[in-house]
């Protein structure tokens, strides 16, 4: 197990390194200096207090959606509907924030989070039940439910709950008590990061140190083995899916309560998808999710500064992210190829020795 982890870490760093090299090559091919480009990227990500704060702010939704993906993928039921759950959660939080405007934060914030958690959780429960009861593929159902949620909230925010100012694709601003305070001037970093730290610890404990986490892992690895051993596979799958939905819902709530202070029609630029990529890269390891989210957050933040400073388009970062995924996905294949190469080399040596 230990050896396997080290092997994995090596391939992970090689993948990241290779992706960065390819990124550098693309910059160079476009007539830019890669060193200048990367310097601007790093400076933009961690160059100042403001930059670090922005990186952290971008990390918040990634950690939540990454953890959400981890628990569902570990249990072998695939929640691809994080984006939809995030939208519903965000809208739920905003709904509380604009209807019970005068609640104090101490009551209001937990209530808003609760509503968003329920919204996200219920929205994940539906495909989970369809899966365990009727064996309907959860991947397809959750993907389609994304569209439903995005369009539904889009309608709600443009008609019944449209802001009085006009059709902005946004609700009214939520009550002041709900607004999470900002931590660093000008950046959107807010107190949600503390909630996220607590949630991460809970999720780590749940997945790695409890019998529930053990059951989830075993189900994901071999459902027949789990059933044979007396685990209630269906119940655990539903549990994992709902927790996943809850986390996505909360991720949406923090975007409303901490960043925009209102629900926007396009509130997420695909956080759930990024979270999924992160979880895939780190093989659903909760601590890995945190580290990889920070890395992705830094890339996102840095890429904007890089574009401003050097004119290298920030989309390059999306290319680099995709290349990392590609390498990690091919990890097993590459590894056996490399091992096979060395084994053959050894073999040849042996033959040579004999002939000599």
């Amino acid at each position, binding site marked *: 197990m230990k050896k396997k982890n080290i092997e994995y870490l090596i391939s992970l760093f090689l993948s990241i390194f290779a992706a960065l090299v390819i990124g550098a090559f693309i910059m160079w091919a476009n007539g830019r200096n890669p060193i200048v480009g990367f310097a601007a990227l790093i400076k933009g990500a961690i160059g100042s207090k403001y930059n670090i704060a922005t990186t952290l702010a971008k990390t918040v939704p990634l950690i939540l959606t990454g953890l959400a993906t981890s628990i569902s993928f570990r249990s072998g039921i695939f929640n691809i509907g994080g984006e939809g759950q995030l939208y519903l959660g965000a809208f739920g939080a905003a709904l509380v924030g604009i209807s019970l405007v005068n609640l104090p934060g101490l009551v209001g914030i937990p209530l808003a989070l609760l509503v968003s958690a329920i919204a996200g959780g219920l929205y994940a429960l539906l495909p989970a039940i369809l899966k365990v009861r009727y064996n309907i593929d959860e991947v397809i159902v959750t993907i389609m439910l994304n569209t439903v949620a995005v369009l539904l909230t889009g309608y709600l925010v443009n008609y019944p709950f449209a802001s009085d100012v006009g059709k902005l694709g946004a609700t009214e601003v939520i009550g002041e008590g709900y607004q999470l305070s900002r931590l660093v001037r000008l950046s959107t970093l807010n107190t949600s990061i503390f909630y996220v730290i607590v949630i991460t610890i809970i999720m780590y404990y749940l997945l790695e140190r409890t*019998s529930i986490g053990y059951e989830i892992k075993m189900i994901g690895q071999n459902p027949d*083995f789990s059933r*044979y051993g007396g685990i209630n596979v269906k119940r655990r799958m539903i549990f994992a899916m709902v927790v996943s939905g809850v986390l996505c819902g909360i991720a949406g709530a923090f975007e409303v309560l901490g960043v925009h202070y209102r629900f926007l029609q396009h509130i997420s630029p695909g956080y759930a998808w990024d979270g999924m990529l992160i979880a895939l890269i780190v093989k659903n390891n909760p601590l890995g999710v945190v580290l990889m989210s920070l890395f992705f957050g830094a890339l996102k933040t840095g890429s904007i500064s890089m574009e401003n400073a050097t004119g290298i388009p920030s989309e390059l970062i999306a290319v680099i992210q995709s290349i990392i995924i590609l390498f990690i996905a091919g990890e097993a294949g590459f590894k056996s190829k490399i091992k096979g190469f060395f084994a053959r080399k050894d073999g040849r040596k042996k033959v040579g020795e004999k002939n000599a």
Partner: protein
Amino acid sequence: MAEKLIELKNITKKFPGVLANDSINLDIEKGEIHAIVGENGAGKSTLMKILYGLYQPTSGQIYFKGQPVEIKSPLDAIKLGIGMVHQHFMLVPSFTVAENIVLGVEPRKSKIFADYNKAVKITEELSREYSLKVDPHAKVESLSVGIQQRIEILKVLHKGADIIILDEPTAVLTPQETEELFRVIRRLVDKLGKTVIIITHKLQEVLALSDRVSVMRQGKMVGTLMTKDANERILAEMMVGREVLFEDLEKKEVARKEVLRAENLQARDNRGLLALKGVSFSLYSGEILGIAGVEGNGQSELLEVLAGLRQVEKGTITINGNEAANKDPLEIRELGLSHIPEDRLSTGLSVEATITENMLLGSHRKEPYAKRGIHLNRKKIRERTDRLIKEYDVRTPSQDVVAGNLSGGNMQKMVIAREFSFDSDILIIAQPTRGVDIGAIEFIHKEIIQKRNEGAAILLVSADLDEIFRLSDRIITIYEGQITGEFLSKEITKNEIGLYMTGKHKDLSQGGA
């Protein structure tokens, strides 16, 4: 001295991390039956796959009739007249016998359309020439395993093989089918001048059939001897590398009490067909009840039903006085039943999980391993795992090794350790030694007998009749989802059992009447 047909010189085959064959020398004489024996993983199959062109040797040379040859693919092997019957048959179940036999070399009408009538004619001719009776029009899926094997042999002969390699041919056959196969092999060699290489690990068969026998161990060739100079003990010792004591297992008299009763059980298989057609039996504490049957006659379904893994259609199961039909696996485990499943890779363990995790299943909600059923106590868990590893002789550098990296025998010991550790009254054990090496078989048998002597009730299913006879106090036979007989194991012979396993006992009694 007979002509040397094939010589393998210094054949070495390396896989990443494994030396499967280590400079093997072997010669095959024309017109002999040459047995190759060895434990699982000794490298027998690898060596034969090299001879058949499926693998390329890392180094070494093959000589055919004294000439060095390179066998790059099975096509090359077939050209030299070498044919192989694999352990898992390569037949298309939905095709007829004739279609299967000509598969790949189909006779053509106007060079385009398959000529089915010609295929039938070819099959009939082959069947006559080699006196192997088959019905060319029968669909393969409707035929017994023995007949399917016959088709495989005909297929190889049709391709013009003079040297036939048989990989574990008797693994799935009944005693009667085995005898029939041996007669066929004898005839091929004595009457038709063929040469046969047979891979097996059943020593009795080697002694009964072969002219010479080569023993392999851990990738090396231990030696070749004339079968008439060998006996079971010598071969077993060569295979294992130490003395193996097939001592009689001591069975104590233990108080008998009915702990499990099945009445008129009916259940369907995965295809929805009735696999159990009213099975009734009782299981008592302090006994081993063996279920003998040809695979696919309802044994698997019966075990799954008892363990709560398959729906009961009709009938009742009573465990320690409690109704247990259609309870879920957890409830059944809590009634005092442990289960060693027949397919350990798909059901008995998770290949990706560590030994620790694999051994934890079933205890993961119990004190002291989980505080209040939730918080896992790693220290206690690791202590227990270490204890079980030692007690059950699981050979591994540490408990953090992933189960998929263990050998078959060690995997099985891990599963047995876990299930035996629950101290259940009832143990359901399926194929306890399938794919397990001789040393581990000895150990596993002893553990099973010890559980029996401690008063556990054990239901044993095995495809290996020898194992059933060695362990069981009582034997029931199952055929097409029904119990066809019940015997004390002392009072019946293997051949008689074979008749009950194939439903032929009725002909016997009718003939007698």
